[in-house]
């Protein structure tokens, strides 16, 4: 008999919390969990995390909106940008090499972390 694997649900729960709490970043937690605990390969993990985070963002952005933490007008230009970037992304993902991208990304993240603390 196959053992029930709780990791997919647990990974989703943890990333969901981070996603709601920090208003993003859930994917950065989810991708490594999908690879290490759920047995997905890197590319599948990245793509699957997008599919998981999307419905979570619907719910958490609604909560931010209802609780007054969100101004639609200020968000509009970013939404337009996201629309453009996302459609490019879906087309070129297959051909992307992920490694160098992650290194650059790590440096930018560290910069942001230090700026937020100071």
């Amino acid at each position, binding site marked *: 008999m196959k053992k029930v694997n709780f990791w997919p649900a647990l990974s989703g729960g943890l990333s969901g919390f981070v996603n*709601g709490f920090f208003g993003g970043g859930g994917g950065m937690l989810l991708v490594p969990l999908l690879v290490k605990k759920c047995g997905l390969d890197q590319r599948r993990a990245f793509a*699957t995390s*997008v599919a998981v985070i999307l419905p979570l963002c619907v719910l958490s952005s609604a909560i931010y909106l209802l*609780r007054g933490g969100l101004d639609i007008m200020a968000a509009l230009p*970013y939404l*337009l*940008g996201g629309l453009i970037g*996302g459609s490019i992304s879906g087309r070129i993902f297959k051909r992307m090499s992920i490694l160098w991208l992650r290194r650059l990304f790590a440096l930018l993240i*560290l910069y942001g972390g230090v*700026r937020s603390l100071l």
Partner: protein
Amino acid sequence: MKEYVFPVLAGALTGILSGFGVGGGTLLLIYMTTVAGLGQTLSQGINLLYFLPAAATALPGHFKNGYIETSVAVPAILLGLVGTVLGALIATSLDVGLLRKCFGLFLIYIGITELFGK
């Protein structure tokens, strides 16, 4: 004009990463809080909303390429929804300064694991 051009550009560039699932949202958060000078809670709300078009446009490509692992995504979404409600409720009632400190620590943790992880 300038106040729209840069947000759209920032959204488009990070949107490419968001569609990959590599943390474009986190970069956008850093942009909004440190460059555009928006508040932490507002930035988080915008970021959640911004992910909707970015992910929705990237996903069809991922599905078509067969990169979405549904057996993992479904349980992750189910518990993720619970987690994200908790996170969003806590974040929108928390002191902004404290939220920002937590965010900074989270970024540094992610940056270090990305940089030195395998």
